[in-house]
Every structure is written in structure tokens, then in C-alpha cells.
């Protein structure tokens, strides 16, 4: 494919010929692996890790392909290609995940090499979105835009992505390995729930420094990560991460897949001994080899096209006027926008949680609409959030109402971000062979029951997370209200947890009582919300009232109603 110029890529890394050649080589490698599998030269057991490292699962109905969206950033042309793939090879829709990736549920193995080739043609792939290797590095959905951000983490996210791609030593780890990185003091990436969470900030000399958290995770054994290193200098970043992953590769458990994550190793050794191991490895390494030269960072940064952020002087005033004249628009601005660092700009959140809908799903037509809106309102740049929504990061305030009107016509203007209707749910037993229970129907019933926008705003900030099993892909441990699907004598039951958080106040939700059948679960959530509304003090969110009062009031609301 002839290519002489770099296509400008706003907010993400622009590929060059070398990157594209690599992607083509990867596609041909997989095409060959599929051929060997079909011929029987590879058994299913041998083929499985190879296909997982190209994002391909054998799932409940068909193959599922998890496409990588590195640090959640997409271009409009890429989104359009995802829509086309959905139409051509799947069932006209896709599902955005809690790690900022996209899943197609009805994929054929024999089509997958062609699908990967089409993705490669728009600089996309499914590399290492599964497997016992380093996965997608997730990032703040408002990176490069948020008013409270001190450093744009996407440059280092890209550096980590490249460094971890087909890493020769770290492709057969004891288990998966997940990084998250944020450049804001307000943790929007759940850094403390990752294997390694990085909080980036400018150091004294203006170069980035990183606070490194290690050993966080959810799943069977939820743990909040521990601070391993405070203020790690940028040039030591790769060496330090190599040291951490190397200690894990050497010493992580390989006898029991449920005890194989790095969080188990950190707990077993204790943070002091773990730190000693990492420091010893760091001291022994050939540091020149792993040094992150500032010139490399500058070079990667130069590949990120920067949008020209100039708004008219009266942009803010125009927005105020439109808000004053259109209550529905005013409500949507209250719930679905985020402050921008540049005067006259704002970030807009497109909710993929319509009332009664499937959280995180988008039809091919909706993907095309979002691509068009991104082109006209936000420099062609699209962000996928780990709460399964979409962000247009750089919208002129004087154009916000026009954007909202177009979203409203397309049914994409649900004003529920961060509210009870903004439910995070894994695909659950409808789609996932690991699940114990279906998560989507509960999400649908809850969002239908609480559809009224006025009611949602009255309830206020409320994170509900639903996981269909203990693998916790819905991040239920980190929900203000968490719902976990369990198998009770072959029937679907749901266990409730309260008080979790994935933000700076990271906390693991506490179980409040025995698991309930589905219809009682929806009623229980309603009872919890009622209890909150009765007992809350001014300015308290649900989770604040829970923390102040403790579980008793809420337990009684569910299990011993008066």
C-alpha cells in the first residue's frame, strides 16, 4: 500500500511506514497461524494463546474479537472502519468495554485475518488485547483537555504501548498485566486498581515524574494498589517497569491461575520485600539500554497532532445564552460536559446508556454518526471511556448546542453521565462463557425504572457497576453500588456491595447481605436509593451518606423493610 505522508492524527500517535509494515507482518503471522490451526498442525491448546494475543476469544455464541483502542483514542476514519467491519463481518454493532477497547461478538475465525488486515489499513489492530501479556494501557478520557490536568499522559501511554508490543521477555507472563496512566491529580483511570497505575506530573525540571502504584486489582481478590515509587524520573520509567514485570515474570505463581496476578505476589512478599526485589533488578540492569532518552519522548510527542484551540471571544457567553433559553440543553450541559483547560472550549460526553438500553453498545450507524460529529465538532478525535461512553474532547462552547441538537436527533443525548442511568455493565451471561448471570437485563431494568432525568439529577452522582461473575469485568468492586452475578443452585442470583470507588478515594465495596433473585435485585436498588434520599445531608452523594451512616440503614432497607 503506497504511503508517503503521515495522516495527521489528533490526540494519538501517527503511524509511519515502519509501523504499518509491522502491522502487515503481524496480520500475515496470524493468517499463517490460522492456516496451521485449520490444518491441525497446531492443536487448540497451542493455538489458544496465539489467537488470544490477537484479541480473539472463543465465546458463548461465536468468536469474539477485542479490537485495541490504545489509551482510548480513535480517529473518525477509524471509527468508520469499525462500523464497516460491524456491518460486513458481524451484526451491525459493537460493544465498548471497561478497558477502552471494542468487542465484536459474532466473528468467524476464517474471517479474522481479513478483519485484522482491514484494521491495519487504518492503523488499528487487536494486538495483546488478551493473553498473559501486557494489555491495553488505559488513560484518562479527558487527557489533553481537562482543566485539572497537569500533564498529558497520552505520550507516555504510547511509549508504554510500543515498548510492550511483542516484548520478547514478557509475552508469556503468569497472567495478564494491566497498566493505567493519568496526568491529573483527580484519578479518572482507577490507577489504584491496576497491576501498575501511573500518576504523571511535571517534576522540578519540567520533565515528567511518575508516582508508581503496584499490585491493585479487582476479580476474586480485590486489592488497592500500593505506592511503590514516588516521583520516578521519566528517563528511568522503562527501566523501572522492566524491573517490575521481570520480578513478576520470574516469581509470579504459575500453579494456580486464580492466584497468578502481581497483586498476589506483592501481598505474599509484602511491599517492602517486593520493592527490594525491584530495586535490586533495577540496580543490576544495563540502564543505558533501558534509558528513556528525552529525545525519544520528544519524537513520540511530535507524532501527536495538536488541535488548533482557538474559540471566538464570545464563545462562553453564547453558551450561557443557549443554556438559559433551552432547559433540556442546559440539563445535558450540567450532566454531560467537563471543563476544558482552554477558554471557550469544553469536553462533551456522548452517553451510550440510553434508557432501557445495553450499556456501551453502539450500532454501526451510531458509530458513523459519532465519526461525523467528531469531524465537525472536535478535530476528528474520539475518546472511549472506561465507563463505556464516548467523549469529544475539544468542542467550542459556541458550537455545543448545535452538537447537542445533532446528538438529540440521533438518540445519543441521554443526560445521565455519572448518574444512576450511567450504568457500567459487562456483557454477562448473554454473551460471556465465564459468566454466572446475565448483567444486561438488570442494567436495562434499572435504567428504565430511573429514566426520568429530573429524578436522576435529584439522586445525583451514583456509580452502579454490574459484573456477571467474579472476574469483575464490570468493576463492581469499585461501584458505589456494585452488583455481582452469582450461581445459586444453577439459578441467577445477585449480590450487592456498597461503598466502592475507583477514584482518589479508592475503596472496595462491602457485601451487605445474601444474594437476591433478579426481580428482587432491582427493587433492592430502588430501596437503597430511597434510603439515601431520606437520610442524606446537603451536598452528600450516595456514597458519602453510606460512609457517614454505615451499612445498617441500607441493609435494613433491602433485607428488613419496615
Amino acid at each position, binding site marked *: 500500500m503506497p504511503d508517503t505522508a503521515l495522516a495527521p492524527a489528533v490526540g494519538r500517535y501517527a503511524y509511519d511506514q515502519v509501523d504499518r509494515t509491522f502491522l502487515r507482518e503481524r496480520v500475515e503471522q496470524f493468517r499463517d497461524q490460522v492456516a496451521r*490451526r*485449520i490444518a*491441525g498442525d497446531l*492443536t*487448540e491448546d497451542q493455538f489458544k494463546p496465539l489467537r488470544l494475543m490477537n484479541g480473539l476469544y*472463543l*465465546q*458463548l*455464541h*461465536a*468468536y469474539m474479537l477485542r479490537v485495541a483502542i490504545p489509551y482510548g483514542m480513535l480517529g473518525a476514519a477509524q471509527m468508520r472502519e469499525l462500523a464497516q467491519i460491524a*456491518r*460486513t*463481518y*458481524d*451484526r451491525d454493532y459493537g460493544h465498548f468495554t471497561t478497558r477502552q477497547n471494542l468487542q465484536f461478538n*459474532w*466473528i*468467524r*475465525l*476464517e474471517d479474522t485475518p481479513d478483519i485484522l488486515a482491514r484494521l491495519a489499513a487504518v492503523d488499528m489492530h487487536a494486538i495483546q488485547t488478551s493473553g498473559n501479556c501486557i494489555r491495553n494501557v488505559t488513560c484518562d478520557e479527558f487527557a489533553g483537555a481537562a482543566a485539572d490536568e497537569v500533564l498529558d499522559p497520552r505520550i507516555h501511554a504510547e511509549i508504554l504501548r510500543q515498548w510492550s508490543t511483542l516484548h520478547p521477555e514478557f509475552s508469556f507472563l503468569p497472567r495478564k498485566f494491566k497498566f493505567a496512566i493519568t496526568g491529573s491529580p483527580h484519578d479518572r483511570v482507577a490507577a489504584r486498581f491496576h497491576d501498575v497505575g501511573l500518576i504523571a506530573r511535571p517534576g522540578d525540571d519540567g520533565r515528567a515524574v511518575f508516582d508508581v502504584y503496584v499490585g491493585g486489582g479487582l476479580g476474586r481478590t480485590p486489592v488497592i494498589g500500593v505506592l511503590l515509587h514516588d516521583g520516578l524520573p521519566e528517563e528511568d520509567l522503562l527501566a523501572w517497569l522492566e524491573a517490575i514485570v521481570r520480578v513478576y515474570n520470574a516469581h509470579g505463581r504459575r500453579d494456580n491461575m486464580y492466584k497468578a496476578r502481581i497483586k498476589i505476589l506483592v501481598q505474599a512478599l509484602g511491599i517492602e520485600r517486593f520493592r527490594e526485589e525491584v530495586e535490586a533488578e533495577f540496580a543490576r540492569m544495563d540502564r543505558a539500554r533501558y534509558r528513556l532518552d528525552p529525545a525519544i519522548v520528544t519524537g513520540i510527542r511530535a507524532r501527536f497532532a495538536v488541535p488548533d484551540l482557538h474559540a471566538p471571544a464570545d464563545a462562553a457567553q453564547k453558551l450561557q445564552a443557549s443554556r438559559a433559553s433551552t432547559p433540556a440543553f442546559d440539563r445535558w450541559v450540567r450532566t454531560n460536559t467537563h471543563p476544558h483547560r482552554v477558554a471557550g472550549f469544553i469536553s462533551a460526553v456522548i452517553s451510550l446508556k440510553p434508557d432501557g438500553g*445495553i450499556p456501551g453498545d453502539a450500532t454501526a450507524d451510531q458509530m458513523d454518526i459519532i465519526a461525523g460529529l467528531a469531524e465537525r465538532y472536535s478535530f476528528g478525535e474520539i475518546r472511549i471511556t472506561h465507563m463505556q461512553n464516548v467523549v469529544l474532547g475539544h468542542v467550542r462552547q459556541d458550537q455545543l448546542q448545535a452538537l447537542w441538537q445533532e446528538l438529540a436527533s440521533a438518540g445519543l443525548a441521554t443526560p445521565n453521565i455519572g448518574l444512576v442511568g450511567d450504568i457500567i455493565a459487562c456483557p454477562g*451471561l*448473554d*454473551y460471556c*462463557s*465465564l*459468566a454466572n*448471570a*446475565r448483567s*444486561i*437485563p438488570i442494567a*436495562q431494568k434499572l435504567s428504565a425504572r430511573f429514566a426520568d432525568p429530573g429524578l436522576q439529577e435529584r439522586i445525583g452522582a451514583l456509580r452502579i457497576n454490574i459484573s456477571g461473575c467474579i472476574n469483575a469485568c464490570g468493576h463492581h468492586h469499585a461501584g458505589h453500588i456494585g452488583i455481582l452475578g452469582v*450461581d445459586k443452585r*444453577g*439459578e*441467577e442470583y445477585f449480590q450487592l456491595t456498597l461503598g466502592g470507588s475507583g477514584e482518589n478515594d479508592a475503596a472496595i465495596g462491602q457485601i451487605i447481605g445474601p444474594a437476591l433473585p433478579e426481580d428482587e435485585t432491582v427493587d433492592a436498588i430502588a430501596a437503597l436509593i430511597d434510603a439515601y434520599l431520606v437520610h442524606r445531608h446537603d451536598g452528600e452523594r450516595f456514597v458519602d451518606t453510606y460512609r457517614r451512616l454505615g451499612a445498617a440503614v441500607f441493609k435494613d432497607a433491602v433485607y428488613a423493610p419496615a
Partner: protein
Amino acid sequence: MDVRNNRRTTAGSSVITANRLLDGRIVWLTDQGTWSVDIACAATWPNDRIETVIADTARHQQDQGVVGVYGVQLADQAAGITPLTVRERIRAFGPTVHPHFVPSHEDTPHA
């Protein structure tokens, strides 16, 4: 394959299932020894006789283009062939949240 899938009681009867290798679709073993996407076409075995059938079938899975062969217990009291567990009913009849994605016909999308 999840160990939970392959549970059965000593009484009762089961069908045999797998995924098709090429397209991943759920298939059920018929009494002609072919694989159908429609569970209504599945052969049933009493549980005390099914283990050897599963083992024999699994031995030939590469030739037959399937992977992950196991047994699925049926609900005895149901009218037609219906799996006992919710999970297997979803595999057989499709995702409950997309009722139009029914597997009971041979065609696959976008042939």
C-alpha cells in the same frame, strides 16, 4: 472449557455440544453423527451412557471441524429439547437481550 459446563446427574439425559472451529458457532451432535446449529436436531443420550460418546466424539473433533466437545444436561420436564441451565439455554437459543439473534437456522451472517 469451564468445568461447570460438563456437570450432569446420574439420572436424566443430555445432548452433546461443541463450537465449530471455522466460525465458532454453537453446534449440537445429531444421531447421524453430524453437527447442527439447531438443538432441536440433537440426539439425546441417557447420562449413564454418554461419557463414552463424549470421549469418542472428542477424539475426532479436529477431523469434524469442532472444538470443545462436552455434554449438556437437559431439563426433563420441558416439552422439546431444552437445556437445564440458563447458560446452556442461552447457548442454544441465543442472547436474551437480542431475541432476533436466533441460532436455529443454518446460515451465518454475511455469507
